[in-house]
Structure formats: C-alpha cells, structure tokens
C-alpha cells in the first residue's frame, strides 16, 4: 500500500526538471498528426450526430469488430456478444471488483502487483493475498499452496488477478507450463481469473505465448484488453471479454457507473482501424521501446552497484530492480529527487509492506539520453547508500549471485524489516 510519504513524494516527480522513470506512460509523440486529423474530420463529415450521442452500454458493434481484430492478432477469436467496451482497461478492474467483491472477500494477486489495481481492491475492501513471482511469472506452486490454505480456513477467493505477459511492475512473463497449470487450476476449482493484458503486442524479442483466455476458451478467464498501449491512453478505450453470466453483471455495473463508453472515442478507433494499418504504428512503437529497454538495461549494468539486480523484460514498459535489503526505496526516492530523478518505490506494488527494497523503472516515456542520465543518477545514490552502509557496519554488502529471482524478500528479512 502506498504510504502517505510515498504519495507526497510522487507529487514532486511531476515537476519539469525531474527525469521521471516513475510514470507508466506510452510515448504518444510519434503518432502522426495527419492521421489524427483525417480520422477526426471523417467523423465530423460522416457521423457527427452519432459521435455526439449516447451509445449502448456494452459498446458499438463496429468497435467490437476492431477489438476482435486486436484479439485475433494474439490468436483469440471473439464474437461481438462476448465483449463489453469500457472506459479504459482500468474500468474493467473496477467493474469486476464492483461486481464480484463483498467486503472481506479474498482476491489473489501477484506480488508485486499492478500498483493501479491496489486502490481498487482496497476501495471494495477485498482481502488481497499476494503470491510471489520469479522470472517465469507467478509461482503457480505457491498459488496452489495458498488456495489449499484458504480452503482450510473456509475461504474461497472471488478471483485471481494476473498480468501474465510483461507484467507491471515486475516486467516478467508467465511461462507456458505455468499458464496451462493456472488454467487447469481454474477449471478444477471453478475459480475465475482476471487476465490483464495491456502489453501483449509490445514484444521486443522471443516467441508469442498464448494468453490464458485462449487456453481456457473463455470459460473461467475474464480478459482485459486496452487500446491505451497500442494506440492512445487519452482515448480511454478498453474492453472485457468474459463468460456470459459475468458479462451480464458487469454490464449492469457499467450502466450505473457511466451509462456508456465515449461514442466519440469509439468512432475514432473505428475510423482509425478502417485505415487498415494499425499494426504499423504498433510496430513503430515496438522499435522505439526496444531501443529504450536496451538503453536502460545497458545503463543499469553500467551504473548500478553489484549488490543490485533487475529483471530483463521481453516486452512491455517496465523493469523491476531490487536493492540490498538495508535500502528503503521510499527514502531513497527522497534522495533521488534531490538529483532530479524519480522512480516508483516498490511498496506501492504490495499491500503488506513488502517490496521496500525494490523499485519500478519505466523505459517507454523517456528518450534514450534521459534514460541513461536518469539511471546514472539513481545508480549514484544507490552506490552512495551501499557505501555508507558499509562504513556504518564495517562490512561490504555481498554482490547478488544470480538474477533468476524477482527478488522478493525472504521471510526472515521480512520479519526483520517489519520490526524496524
């Protein structure tokens, strides 16, 4: 959970002189203004009245056809009646939580989880149980242990929330075998899974892996998609594909929330997709982000001390770095801000006080020079703290032996830190 200290500090990261590796923003600066103008004038000429009008709660059929195109690109067939168009992917998390969670219900999430999901789960008073990850995503063996334990306590989770591909914030991807096992578990236990997949098409290397929704066939998996990372977050358009009974409830919930998703935004997407080259723009973004990821990985290798480690994402927007456990990244952020650089402290991705020696670094929204300089500055303050700790204890902190694990603190470390 974000502490008030962290919230206060994040307010300073927005200042222009700060190199912010804290955001989660895609780069919208390369979207062609001519395309925007052409799309907008076409709507003005052909569907002005419609664009200005309410639409159906579940979204326009033609928008769903665009959604079907995007899902087909990741190997998933979709009928119009299987999806609801939403106001961004974030609304899906909110609507699923609103529909399914009663106060005190258990929701299972990854540890670390998407920081933006945390306030949603808290608002609906869910009891969030976080399952650790390693470089192959959520530890499904630990998930099963957790489900067994909850079973013994007579508690049944309402759903499992996961970002299996290029996870936010950890940057790791769930392996195929774990995906298969997770879907099996859902079937065996008749458990719903919310698969959040905003980054699947932003792949910089390696082979595509099937989304959980594809493996499951839409029986227990609810699928969250969004146009935010492949077109524009400002257009606020996402969707949910889910089993019919769940979809019906979500539809009712959405009626209460906002009646319908912006018709103007939906028509923009339709007109844009009719041009037939939406994949080209995604490819151009992928090229830009791949270079930025490589720049950040190189800078980390150059500037972070040997006591730090980090993940190597094959796509998406984030790298998760973990420092020695005597460094608290919320305090470190205060120091980093004096050097005009910012990141997200790891505690924001946990609800139980874990993650205090980790940080999320975003590489999509800064140019390569800023990334290099930002990482250099963070590396410098980290090294300074490692050295100071060495001076205080008379010991040199050991280097990290391998980068195999998404460095979660061990239980012993956790207990020690809980007492400090």
């Amino acid at each position: 959970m974000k502490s008030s200290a962290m919230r206060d500090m994040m307010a300073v990261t927005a200042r222009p002189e700060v190199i912010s590796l804290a955001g989660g923003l895609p780069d919208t600066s390369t979207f062609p203004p001519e395309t925007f103008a052409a799309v907008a004038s076409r709507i003005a000429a052909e569907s002005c009245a419609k664009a200005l009008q309410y639409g159906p709660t579940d979204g326009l059929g033609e928008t769903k056809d665009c959604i079907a195109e995007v899902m087909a690109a990741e190997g998933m067939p979709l009928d119009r009646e299987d999806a609801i168009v939403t106001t961004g992917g974030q609304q899906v998390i909110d609507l699923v939580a609103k529909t399914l969670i009663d106060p005190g219900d258990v929701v299972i999430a990854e540890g670390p989880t998407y920081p933006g999901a945390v306030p949603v789960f808290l608002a609906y008073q869910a009891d969030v149980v976080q399952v650790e990850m390693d470089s192959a995503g959520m530890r499904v063996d630990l998930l099963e242990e957790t489900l067994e334990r909850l079973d013994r306590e007579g508690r049944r989770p309402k759903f499992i929330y996961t970002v299996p591909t290029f996870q936010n914030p950890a940057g790791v991807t769930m392996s195929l075998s774990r995906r298969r096992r997770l879907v099996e578990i859902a079937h065996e236990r008749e458990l719903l899974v919310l698969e959040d997949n905003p980054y699947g098409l932003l792949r910089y290397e390696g082979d595509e892996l099937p989304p959980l929704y594809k493996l499951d066939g839409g029986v227990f998996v609810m699928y969250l998609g969004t146009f935010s990372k492949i077109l524009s977050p400002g257009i606020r358009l996402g969707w949910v594909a889910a089993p019919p009974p769940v979809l019906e409830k979500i539809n009712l919930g959405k009626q209460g929330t906002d009646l319908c998703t912006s018709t103007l935004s939906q028509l923009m997407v339709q007109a844009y997709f009719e041009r037939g080259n939406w994949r080209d723009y995604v490819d151009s973004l992928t090229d830009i982000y791949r270079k930025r990821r490589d720049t950040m990985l190189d800078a980390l290798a150059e500037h972070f001390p040997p006591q730090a480690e980090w993940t190597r994402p094959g796509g998406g927007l984030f790298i998760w770095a973990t420092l020695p456990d005597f460094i608290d990244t919320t305090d470190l952020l205060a120091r980093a801000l004096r050097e005009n650089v910012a990141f997200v402290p790891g505690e924001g991705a946990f609800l139980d006080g874990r993650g205090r020696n980790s940080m999320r670094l975003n590489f999509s929204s800064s140019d390569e020079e800023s990334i290099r300089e930002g990482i250099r500055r963070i590396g410098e303050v980290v090294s300074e703290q490692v050295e100071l700790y060495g001076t205080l204890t008379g010991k040199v902190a050991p280097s990290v032996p391998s980068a195999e694990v998404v460095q979660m603190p061990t239980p012993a470390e956790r207990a020690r830190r809980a007492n400090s």
Partner: protein
Amino acid sequence: MTTDAARRVAVLKGGRSLERQVSLRSGARVEDALGRLGHEVVPIDVGLDLIQQLRDVRPDVAFIAMHGRDGEHGTVQELLEILDIPYTGSGVLGCVRATDKVLAKHLMIEAGIPTPDFFAFNETAFRELGAAEALAAIEERLEFPIVVKPSSQGSALGIKFARSAADLPAALVAAFSYDSKVVLERHVDGRDLAVSILADEPLPVVEAVPQGDEFYDFQARYEIGRTSFICPAELPEGATERAQDLALRVYRLLGCHAFARVDLMLDGSGELTVLEANPIPGLTETSLLPQAAEAVGITFDQLVGRILELAEDGNRGLAPPDPRGTLAG
C-alpha cells in the same frame, strides 16, 4: 493592521519540498479564506520564476503556506526580505533555528527546556572521521529503542525507530536520504502532544492517539483514520499549563513570530519533554493548528485573518529573549 482593508496577497505554496502536496492543500484552503475575507488573492506555486512573479504581482503581503525545504527553512523569507515584501509567520532567524533540530535542541538545553537526550552527526563524520566506531558508545548512552531522524525534515519523513543495534545502520542510511545531518534521540514512551501558538498565546493542547495496537508507528501519525486527535487533550492536573508554558518558551527562545506549533511528549511519570517546533505548521482540514484554534472559537477564516494582520506589524525575527530562559533548570 485591519481586516477591513483589502490587500493583494500572494499565497506561496507547493515548491520542491517533499511536503509539496500538503502545502498545496494548505495553500488552497488559505486562498479560499482570504477570498472570503475580501482580499485579492494571487496563488504562486513556487519555482524558478518566483522573483519575477513577485515583481509582476507586487503583493502587499506574501502568505507563506509552504512546508519543509525552502518555505520553512528561511530561504523564501530571505528573498521576501530582499524584495521588501511583508510576509506571514516567522522571520529568517526563527525559521533557521526551528527547522534545524540539532540547533533547536542545543538552544533548548542551554535554556533549561527539557528535550530528549540526543547525538547528532553529519555524513562526513561517518565517511571521514570513522564515527561508526562511536556508535556502540552512543547506544549505551541512549539505550534502545532509539529514534533516528533527519535534522531538518519536517513531518514524519525519514524517521526510523531502531529497536536494537542491528537496526541502526539501515535507519541511518534512511535518515541520510533526507539530510546530510541526522539526530539519534532517546525514545520517550508516552503521550504525543502538540501546542500551537498564535500571536504569543498558547492554544489548547492537542493529543494525537494512534489507533490500533502498534507499539509505535510513525506512519500512523500521518495516515488519516489511523490517528485520532483529541482537543483539548485531557491531561493530569497541571500538565496542560506546563505544556503550554514550555511551548511558549520554545516559541520565544527560537524567535518564532505570529504562529508556530511545538510538539511534546508526556511520559508515564508526568514529565514533559519538547521534541521540536514547526514554524509553518499545516493548515489543512486535518491539521492541528486549525483544530486547536477552533477549540477556542477561532474559525479558520479568523485564524488566517489574524496571521495576515501579524505579517504587517513589523516585529519579526528578533523576539524578546525568554526572560526565564537562562534562569530555569
């Protein structure tokens, strides 16, 4: 000197401080109040163009609603002195003395005002003078638990609680994230009190009561709902008067002006100790100074109006020395 006269008031807020967010909330609330009092309000989010903005706006008075670095440390006050613009609250000297916890504690000890035992170090002491060697001796002198805090950070940022020697290095690393000077202080177990001063008069005592059963959780002090505030605090016979008296003495000793908040602890044996003074305490909906003022029937608008009047009375920076300062204790 009268609220009848409309003034052009520049409200300085935000800035680069880590308490930027609280400052923006204080500032917004002050702006509303000044507007209701009939003044012309010009909000300024303090940045590189501050001097230019002040020259353009030419305010009659500057209302400083900044917390932490720059606003509370005397820097902005210094600039306003140079520009000859009257401003609210304490002068440069009061700000410098109050926000440097080490200096404030030395002054308190010299004046016989009780404050918890402490040691202070800057980073070079560890890096260049091998002060780590002396940590064991410090541990003996203060006894655990020890509170470790940055010397000049307001609010609870960077304050750590070391229960044993093993906790100390990480706590020091954290505190040095905020400041190059840190204080190691004996922990006082007791009740958390705050006395606000307005125009040389102490307001009723506020007690902060952490919710839940945590042994002691600094975070709790600042999380809404995790702390409840009682005003006036229900204290043992005579303690309220003693707390108010101590707070006023600290306010005068440090040379504060117009308003300030002094934080104290009341331990099990009834002893009071002063932790620190804040020259620009929060002015948000949940802040302690407005709560204390409200307890004696001073509305927020009246409070803001009074602070504004005091900005123009010219008597700032060198408060009369505390007559009891050198005699007591």
